């Protein structure tokens, strides 16, 4: 599924009956509405960066909170600049069924529209803005997973490569109109292109970094490090949930026709219901398995539902959306201890939520969308997985053997906040060294 080039077809001409109604006088309005949809949806997605930040700040120990905050806001800054410098054109310019776009600074050209020709469908800048915020989201997934032990600047170096090179290249394969798009692979808003990509990069990083000291004992004992602030984690989840309406809704890529407005409405509903399904399913699962509800699992469950529906939020009937989300919620409850068993230390559950459910969501697309095939979806998932694993492993290892990736054992004990940035997130509150 191409994301940009097919816009006009999808947004304005897909429905023949509309095409007639939309003559010249309407098209400027369509142009404005498409643009405005990109801008407002983009703001909601930008807001997800705060959601990731709060979620992660709530799930790390208090001694690493200031650092994770800093990482989350600075990676968003990096994403913006890199996506301007290289990312956008690498993803969208001249892909033509291939494997990569072209290098070069992004620049807007709205001359045609200013001269009264609205065929472009939307202002170039609004599109750039909307695509850029997605790029930031992939990065946010990584930060939570590798938290509490990675050094600040090396992490940011990885973000530079992820947002400038890795993310855009694989993005070009689908949304840029590259080979996977030609093959019929479909990922509406990025279960694979954004969430799994973040997940694969995080997985590679978590393995190369190793687990936090003390997390996995010799005899298979797992020591949990409870999150420092569950209200922040809840707030972060609410923010993500809110932002997801922009993430999925805006991915209709149009608002300039009744058809696209209807599509956005359906996307909103399914997005919400999948989140509901994921959360409730996760809550029931933990209650049954462990006899107590775990707040962090409920939150992860909601996010699992959201990630699961992201690959195809427009097509399913509402009931199907609930089920797709619910499967995601179940998966997340199983995946968290599974990764622990593998001794892959994922601080916030990012792998369970974004990687596992990203894959599930992508494979679930053919359930409601007859134009897609399970095999093609699988090929897409695998191809992108392999690409991201290989490229991000190269970057992680290059950083590891040059500037180093991990704080020292003593610094880790002390906490990244004091060791790396010399300040505490909560300097006036007595910590609890005892338990």
């Amino acid at each position: 599924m191409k994301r940009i080039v097919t816009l006009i077809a999808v947004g304005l001409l897909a429905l023949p009956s509309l095409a007639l109604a939309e003559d010249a006088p309407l098209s400027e309005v369509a142009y404005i509405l498409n643009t405005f949809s990109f801008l407002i949806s983009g703001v909601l997605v930008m807001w997800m960066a705060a959601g990731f930040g709060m979620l992660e700040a709530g799930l790390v120990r208090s001694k690493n909170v200031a650092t994770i905050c800093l990482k989350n806001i600075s990676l968003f800054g990096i994403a913006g600049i890199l996506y301007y410098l290289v990312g956008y054109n690498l993803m969208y310019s001249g892909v033509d069924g291939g494997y990569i776009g072209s290098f070069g600074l992004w620049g807007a050209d709205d001359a045609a529209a200013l001269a009264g020709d609205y065929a472009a469908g939307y202002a170039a800048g609004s599109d750039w803005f909307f695509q850029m915020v997605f790029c930031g989201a992939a990065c946010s997934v990584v930060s939570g997973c590798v938290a509490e032990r990675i050094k600040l600047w090396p992490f940011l170096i990885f973000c530079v490569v992820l947002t400038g090179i890795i993310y855009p290249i694989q993005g070009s394969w689908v949304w840029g109109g590259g080979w996977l798009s030609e093959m019929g692979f479909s990922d509406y808003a990025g279960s694979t292109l954004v969430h799994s990509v973040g997940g694969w990069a995080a997985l590679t990083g978590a393995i190369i970094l190793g687990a936090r000291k003390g997390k996995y004992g010799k005899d298979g004992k797992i020591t949990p490090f409870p999150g420092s602030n569950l209200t922040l984690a809840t707030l972060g989840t609410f923010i993500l949930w809110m932002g997801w309406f922009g993430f999925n809704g805006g991915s209709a890529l149009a608002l300039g026709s009744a058809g696209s407005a209807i599509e956005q409405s359906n996307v909103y509903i399914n997005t919400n219901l999948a989140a509901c399904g994921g959360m409730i399913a996760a809550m029931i699962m933990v209650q049954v398995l462990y006899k107590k509800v775990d707040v962090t699992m409920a939150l992860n469950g909601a996010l699992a539902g959201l990630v699961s529906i992201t690959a195809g939020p427009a097509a399913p009937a509402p009931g199907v959306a609930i089920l797709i989300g619910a499967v995601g919620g179940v998966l997340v409850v199983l995946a968290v201890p599974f990764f622990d068993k593998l001794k892959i230390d994922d601080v916030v559950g990012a792998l369970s939520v974004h990687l596992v459910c990203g894959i599930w969501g992508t494979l679930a697309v053919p359930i409601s969308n007859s134009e897609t095939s399970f095999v093609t979806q699988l090929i897409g998932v695998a191809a992108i997985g392999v690409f991201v694993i290989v490229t991000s492993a190269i970057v992680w290892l290059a950083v590891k053997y040059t500037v180093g990736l991990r704080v020292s054992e003593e610094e880790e004990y002390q906490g990244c906040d004091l060791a790396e940035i010399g300040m505490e997130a909560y300097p006036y509150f007595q910590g609890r060294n005892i338990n």
Partner: protein
Amino acid sequence: MKKIECIIKPFKLDDVKSVLTDLGIAGMTVSEVRGFGRQKGHTELYRGAEYQIDFIPKVKIELVVADEQVADIVSAVQKEACTGRIGDGKIFVTPVDQSVRIRTGETGPDSL
């Protein structure tokens, strides 16, 4: 003079304070501590992994009193703080050589 140190369950603090003031105790110093003893902590589950909380919240009351008051206070606190359930805590009495009230410089039992 003696120092009486009482380690009690937190929810008994108000009751113990009342009984102490009834006995005419004018001052005490309280702090939060965590106790380890016969009363075992609890097992919690976090994201599917179990872990043990060993140390249980307790409150420590310290008060320095004249020798002759010790017996009354100890027995009063013991009665008041007692729930009969494990983990009720301890009372320790230790010697004090000297006491000074900072505000006035008074010393000895007068300073309490």
